[in-house]
């Protein structure tokens, strides 16, 4: 009996070892392979190194961040993809979708590990710059003929230009607008503000009625940043703003200080909820969608949600207007926004030509689809036919097409530590912890 027990124990110990070793081995590279649904397809793609002939089977790994099925971009991507697959039966597309914040980490990790997928979503300007600098992104124009890009509005693709070369293709752009709840304005007997003075009047009237005039979720700092960014456009213009962002001009000048002062004035005038630093973007948005707050300055993407009866109580009650004009400013028809989201091809992709054509096809098709959905302003010349577009979206598109210039949100233009410094300086403004002068000096420190 004793011998049997000993034997059993030996066996158990060996078995334990086996399980642990199995666990360790299982966590190794093998798992990484099963994680991507494309393991088989990848192998297939790697066996043929030459450019594929017309009917040759090709498979592409595509990463994006549209995980929510009825999100505007997700719908348009999926429609574009369906069309593509119907026309290109020889190309297998392996999709891997990851939620926004996780995606940022995932794509950065993949690129630093030299394991970027063939085609992936990225933000342009500062976000993709390290990828391009590290030589991980293919120069897309090398693999496309001119006809493929004839509909692209080249000026809008500037966020994917690095050193004068085009690396990626955007599908649509966004624009910052002031959403105003017309019903609440009428009830309060105030005019929807066209000028800064009218905005101040409206703020005073709403405050008098115990209504928070403008909703903002400053805990998510980018939300608060929009106000500083658009204020700087009014006082300094898009050109000077861009120069400063490119570190070619100084922030430490009156124009930018005036912009920061505008934000401070708004805070001082109780334009925002005193607790706005504790609210997230979602909480702030709900105040507009519930009809609690009459105004919100946000991107065009919000229009689709405002017009969605399932989540909004203010459908057809909201109008989109330009951020109020500043008297004497030459920059009143300039906007915050631009085309910052797009698809790029990885430098290590085996079939760059197929991938580049895929990117061009998808982004052009997405431009149209997202326009029809009301989730984006196309940066490709599209033929929408006589499809009807939501009136709120139409207002935004009209504003965007009439614009004199754009600056993309500063947090996407800047990169790395500059972003967090900028965001925290803006939060300091909202907390009235810094003066306009300290703000511009803090920003200028980034350029020195």
């Amino acid at each position, binding site marked *: 009996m004793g011998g049997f027990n000993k034997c059993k124990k030996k066996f158990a*110990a060996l078995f334990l070892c086996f399980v642990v070793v199995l666990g360790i081995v299982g966590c190794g590279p093998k798992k990484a392979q099963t994680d991507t649904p494309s393991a088989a397809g990848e192998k297939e793609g790697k066996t043929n190194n030459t450019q594929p002939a017309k009917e040759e089977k090709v498979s592409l790994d595509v990463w994006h961040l549209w995980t929510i099925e009825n999100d505007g971009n997700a719908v348009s991507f999926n429609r574009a993809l369906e069309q593509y697959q119907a026309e290109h039966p020889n190309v297998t597309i392996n999709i891997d979708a990851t939620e926004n914040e996780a995606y940022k980490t995932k794509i*950065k990790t993949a690129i630093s590990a030299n394991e970027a997928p063939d085609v992936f979503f990225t933000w342009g300007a500062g976000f993709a710059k390290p990828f391009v600098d590290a030589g991980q992104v293919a120069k897309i124009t090398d693999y496309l003929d001119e006809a493929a890009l004839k509909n692209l509005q080249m000026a809008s693709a500037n966020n994917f230009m690095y050193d004068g070369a085009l690396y990626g293709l955007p599908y649509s752009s966004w624009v910052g607008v002031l959403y105003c709840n017309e019903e609440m304005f009428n009830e309060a007997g105030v005019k929807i503000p066209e000028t800064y003075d009218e905005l101040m009047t409206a703020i005073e009237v709403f405050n008098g009625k115990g209504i928070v005039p403008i909703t903002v979720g400053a805990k998510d700092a980018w939300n608060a940043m929009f106000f500083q960014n658009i204020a700087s456009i009014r006082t300094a213009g898009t050109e000077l703003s861009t120069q400063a962002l490119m570190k070619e001009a100084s922030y430490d000048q009156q124009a930018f200080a005036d912009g920061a002062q505008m934000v401070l004035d708004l805070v001082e005038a109780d334009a925002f*909820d005193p607790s706005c630093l*504790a609210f997230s973007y979602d909480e702030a948005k709900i105040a507009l969608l519930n009809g609690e707050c009459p105004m919100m300055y946000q991107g065009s993407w919000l229009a689709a949600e405002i017009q969605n009866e399932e989540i909004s109580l203010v459908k057809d009650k909201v109008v989109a207007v330009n951020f109020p004009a500043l008297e004497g400013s030459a920059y009143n028809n300039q906007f915050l926004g631009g085309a910052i989201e797009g698809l790029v091809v990885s430098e290590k992709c085996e079939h760059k030509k197929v991938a580049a054509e895929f990117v061009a096809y998808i982004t052009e098709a997405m431009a149209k689809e997202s326009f029809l959905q009301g989730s984006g302003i196309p940066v490709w010349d599209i033929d929408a036919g006589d499809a009807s577009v939501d009136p709120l979206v139409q207002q935004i598109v009209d504003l965007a097409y009439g614009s004199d210039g754009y600056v993309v949100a500063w947090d996407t233009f800047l990169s790395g*530590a500059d972003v967090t410094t900028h965001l925290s300086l803006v939060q300091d403004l909202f*907390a009235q912890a810094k003066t306009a002068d300290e703000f511009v000096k803090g920003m200028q420190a980034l350029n020195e």
Partner: protein
Amino acid sequence: MDRILSNKKYIFLFVFPAFLLFVTTIMIPIAYSGYLSTLDWNGYSEKVFIGFENYKNLFADFPEGFTIGVKNSLLLALLSIFIQVPIALILAIVISKGLKGEKFFRTVYFIPVIISTTVIGQLWLKVYQPKYGVLNYLLSAIGLDNLKQSWLASTETALACVFFVCVWQYIGYHMLLLYSAIKSIPKTILEAARVDGASNLQIARHITIPLIKPMIKVCVTFALIGSLKTFDLIYVLTKGGPVHSTEVPTTIMYRVLLSENNYGLGSAMAIFIVIECLLFTVFIQRGFKAEAHTY
């Protein structure tokens, strides 16, 4: 069984798998972080060796104040040791006396430990919510309208509000540890004391607490280390804001690593936190060394 356990081969066999796991999942990553902390590296660029430059930058001109973070975490550690653990101890002593509904109270106090910290964070966000939050509602219900605050939005109240939740959440955890230690004290000792006419307070002071000292030491260590590396609750509640008033080392590290891609500086912070925790653990071990009581 004794023969097996004294055989070196078997010792190796049993210990090796765990040792392997420990080395691959803990030691190697720490060593690797140590290596990264000497680099100027953004994750994609060439790795440039810069020696201890990152450690110097930790406390020198760092714009978002790593020092504030360290100070805040030390304050939380003090609160945990001198408020959280004592409350847990009192609760444990009271509950373990076998009052009616012992099981019920034990479960209730332990609930916050079971619930995911993110859920706890959401819960307290609603409590502190300035418009419809429970706290402001209660204040106005008892006529203290002038005390109503936007709790998490003000630099004056945010830190206290966040730390309150941190301390509150783990009281149940320490209570359960201490409770089980108290329950393991032989009944005979307590009965003897009672026969000798000792009051409840005297029993607690001279018998219970000395006998569960080892467990108190464990609790203090956990409370201290937990405070030094706290992250999730603060991230959910304030993300370190407003204006960096609730920043702790880990929230700064998270931002530096993942938003700013500064792997060198971020790793230096990680190493700092590891060393800080080790040092304080040693101090506590020393502090409690004095005398050992046995039954």
